[in-house]
């Protein structure tokens, strides 16, 4: 394997790991939003967050090639999915896909949310297992599909 090929493989691993992290963060933010919403329902007089998107708008990750990183989290709301597209939130807390070219339709599920074409995972290494677990836990169908895509890509290159 040449140096460039090795870097390519490592970049794939990095992408996969970032996707796992994104899934974890999405789950956490959903939990935080749930707590916030329960606060709102406990306190009818207070300003609620129901009208605010779960994720702030703005592209993340892409376009970072030549400019200084813009101001921290306020400008970095979207979650970059595996292929570089960005998943944003709508006002109902449901997330919509930022990149229409991505796989928007879920493939058939064999069992427990695992697509039919996904193998048992018995031979998964640690990275594959992490992506698989993140995909299985993910409730958002768009992001889940992105994670399964990452899983497929990762497994295919092995």
């Amino acid at each position: 394997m040449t140096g460039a090929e090795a870097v390519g493989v490592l970049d794939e691993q990095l992408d996969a790991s970032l996707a796992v992290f994104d899934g974890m963060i999405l789950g956490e933010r959903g939990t935080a939003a749930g707590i916030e919403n329960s606060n709102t329902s406990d306190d009818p007089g207070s300003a609620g967050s129901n009208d605010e998107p779960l994720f702030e708008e703005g592209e993340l990750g892409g376009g970072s090639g030549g400019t200084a990183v813009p101001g921290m989290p306020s400008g970095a709301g979207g979650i970059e999915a595996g292929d570089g597209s960005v998943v944003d939130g709508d006002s109902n807390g449901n997330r919509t896909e930022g990149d229409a070219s991505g796989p928007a339709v879920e493939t058939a599920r064999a069992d427990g949310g695992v697509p039919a074409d996904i193998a048992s995972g018995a031979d998964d290494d640690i990275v594959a297992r992490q992506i698989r677990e993140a995909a299985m836990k993910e409730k958002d169908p768009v992001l889940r599909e992105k994670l399964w895509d990452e899983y497929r890509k990762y497994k295919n290159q092995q």
Partner: protein
Amino acid sequence: MNYKCTIWLLTLLLALTGCGGTTVKSTKFTQLEQQTAEIPEAQLLDLGVLGFDPGLDDIEDDDSILPEIRNAEARFFADQLADTIQSSGAWGAVRVIPAADTIVDVYVKGKILHSDGENLVLAIHAYDTSGITWLRKEYDDRASRYAYDRRRKIKDDPFQGLFNRIANDLIRERQNLEGDRAETLRAISELRFARLFAPDAYSDYLRENRKGVLEISRLPAENDPLLTRIRRIRERDYLYIDTLQEYYHAFSRRMETPYQNWRAESYSEVIAARELKQQSTQRLVGGIAAVVGGIAAATSSNAASRTGGYVAATGGGMLIKSALEKKAEAQLHIETLVELGQSLEAEIEPQVIELEDRTITLTGNAEAQYQQWKAILQEIYAAERGDI
């Protein structure tokens, strides 16, 4: 002991019997200054407020201060200060951050020196990413009685003026930055982040001068591929901090109503306890002086002085008795304060524990991923250099 002295003792006696405490009401309120001139995005500094030090180590023997409430206040005040600073419009993102190793451009550390509903005293230290101190100052404020008057329905926190003063001082420090210093600070933050994730590649881009201040030795190329990867990772770091922020916010919102109620109820008890303590001390001192002086006068050869001495000694004894009664009364108010505190503590303790659990879990998960990314970046760096 002469006649004049006896008269003085009697006057003191009368004065102490009738004396009472005074309450100084402060109604001065500092408005939050707004940044009016637009700051270019490249010069916007991100600011992190660290969770406050609850100041529990410095608390002397004070039964009315309960650790769980202080711990909750340490988070609540940090969140309140971050919100206030963000509202000034002079900064990039303003977030409560879990630790000083989180990389932002400006850090604000706070310590609670005193907090009882009537008075709030905070020690604040602000410094930038290079390690230069911007301000180190104590801020104190006294709540107006009207702040807790429910008929007025004042929406602001009773101590919002104090937080506004801190935010205003920070704006002034920000405005004092010379030339392109803001851009330099941003670059230092980015290089610190790069150094954290790829120390082999970026450790020599920053150096520490003799004063311990970070300076840029050299800058990476804008198209540096490793830096591009690190920027993608940094976006995740922002998201992690944002997520923590949501937990802190949720905690503050859940805590706010019971906490403000506790403050309002504590306010009158704190004032009553303090006034009674003052009266008790004054009467005790005066009573002892009167008894001692009276006994001395009672041995005088002058009949009038002797009579005055007896009166003073008797009055002094009554003063001491009254002082002890005042002390007992003050103790009742302190006990009420403790009860109020325990009630609030019971209400917010589960929330504090929940917040800690969530932040520890999230931080642990993020840290595990960060370790993985560091390892991958190290391998990429080695592969690009032809080491593997």
